[in-house]
């Protein structure tokens, strides 16, 4: 008769009870953290922008894991290590980390403030320190912008929060101004009327406030004029990119040439005699 001496697993369990409990605590904390992040994402899906949900989830995840680790350490019942000592050590570590990672923490809090104040959102075009581009991610520490040329710019949140920033996408309406010169001998009223008519014909030019064309200055090669038209914040680029062409085509239709600077030089032939 063959008999097997099976190891008494329960003895191991009893012997390493603390370790087993600590592992269970960490596994449970991971499961709870995962569950809570999924729950948060589903609950907030239609109410809160996705980048904010993603950052909230990161916070929830790490807090739950930290709690799990604290509970695990407590369950390990390491001789000489009490909860009070753990808290004191944790506090001291926090001070050291806080001092060492001052800049990181400043970016972290700036990130939270950017998410609550929301000076821009993902998809907005911003200009920070002449870095112009579209916001593609707002993280807890930094914001990523894709420039018009296609490269990525990572800007620390504290810099974005503490410096002037232009958000091109936040405007309800925007004004586009283009200056041009017409020679002195041409009829200004005809130019004004024709240009206003052309601008009004564009769907993205607002009817109110009305487009305007007026003289700004008399310059050496003609009359400096300015055309102004309003458009919505979303159609700004349509107007910005088309307005010079509209002006050029209208002037061409009216037979008005480009006004070059002119110099008239006369020779005094009497001087050679």
């Amino acid at each position, binding site marked *: 008769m063959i008999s097997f001496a099976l190891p008494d697993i329960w003895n191991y369990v009893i012997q390493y009870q603390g370790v087993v409990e600590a592992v269970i605590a960490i596994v449970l904390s991971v499961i709870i953290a995962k569950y809570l992040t999924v729950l948060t994402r589903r609950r907030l899906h239609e109410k809160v922008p996705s980048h904010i949900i993603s950052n909230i989830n990161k916070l929830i995840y790490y807090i739950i894991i930290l709690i799990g680790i604290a509970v695990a350490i407590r369950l390990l019942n390491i001789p000489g290590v009490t909860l009070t000592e753990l808290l004191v050590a944790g506090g001291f570590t926090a001070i050291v980390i806080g001092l060492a990672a001052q800049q990181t923490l400043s970016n972290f809090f700036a990130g939270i403030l950017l998410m609550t104040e929301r000076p821009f959102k993902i998809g907005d075009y911003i200009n920070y320190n002449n870095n112009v581009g579209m916001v593609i991610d707002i993280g807890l520490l930094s914001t990523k912008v894709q420039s018009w040329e296609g490269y990525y710019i990572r800007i620390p949140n504290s810099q974005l929060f503490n410096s002037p920033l232009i958000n091109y996408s936040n405007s*309800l*309406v925007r004004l586009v101004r283009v200056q041009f010169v017409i020679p002195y001998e041409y009829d200004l009223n005809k130019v004004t009327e024709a240009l206003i008519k052309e601008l009004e014909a564009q*769907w993205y030019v*607002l009817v*109110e*406030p009305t487009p305007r064309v007026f003289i700004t200055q008399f310059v050496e090669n003609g009359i400096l004029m300015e055309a102004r038209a309003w458009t*919505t914040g979303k159609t700004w680029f349509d107007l910005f990119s088309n307005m010079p062409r509209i002006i050029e085509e209208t002037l061409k239709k009216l037979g008005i040439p480009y006004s070059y600077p002119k110099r008239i030089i006369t020779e005094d032939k009497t001087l050679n005699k």
Partner: protein
Amino acid sequence: MELGYSIIKERDHFVYQKGEKKIKIPSNLTIKEFPILSINEAVTEYFGIVFEQPIYIGEDHEVKIYVKLPLDIGIYVSDGSNYKLIDVIEIYAKKYALYGTIGEGVIYRYWKTNAFLEQPIVSGNEAITLIEIINKAGSIGSVSRIIFDAKFFSLYTKEGKFYGERIRVTRLQRGLALVRLMNKPTIEGTEIIPTTVSKGIGGQFEMRFGT
């Protein structure tokens, strides 16, 4: 009228095609046309009726007028009870304007029209809407435009003609009026266009930058 689109049946689906635009539609859905008071949702959701001449109204008086509204053709896919707009065939060119200030105003689709004391004669691409203007501002005032949220505006049909929802404008103070969509057709005995059944609470707009 040539609408410039085609529907081609392929193995297990339809293909809606207009110019370069192609949309695949499962064969269990149908494609239908309905009139629509369209706006460009990327730009705004508001529609503004601007009167050719302002309408003056005395203290505590009420005026009823009719206006014509432009109807484009909406192309919808439907499962029998739900409708999803997939394209708009534009009959009318759209223009937009700003109501209010640059910081706090709204953009609206600009539609200039005459006001009529009786139902006007309309074409197949126009709807008639009744507007009731009530003046509770305590002085003579004028109304030159009214703005409302187009997504709550219902359209109705009767004997081949289209009608809009009744609109009530209450002038509350100088420079302040309330525009309400009344959820009632302009005339009785009409049938609602199913795609314009209002699915939310709304249809009230406060005009606080003057009328």
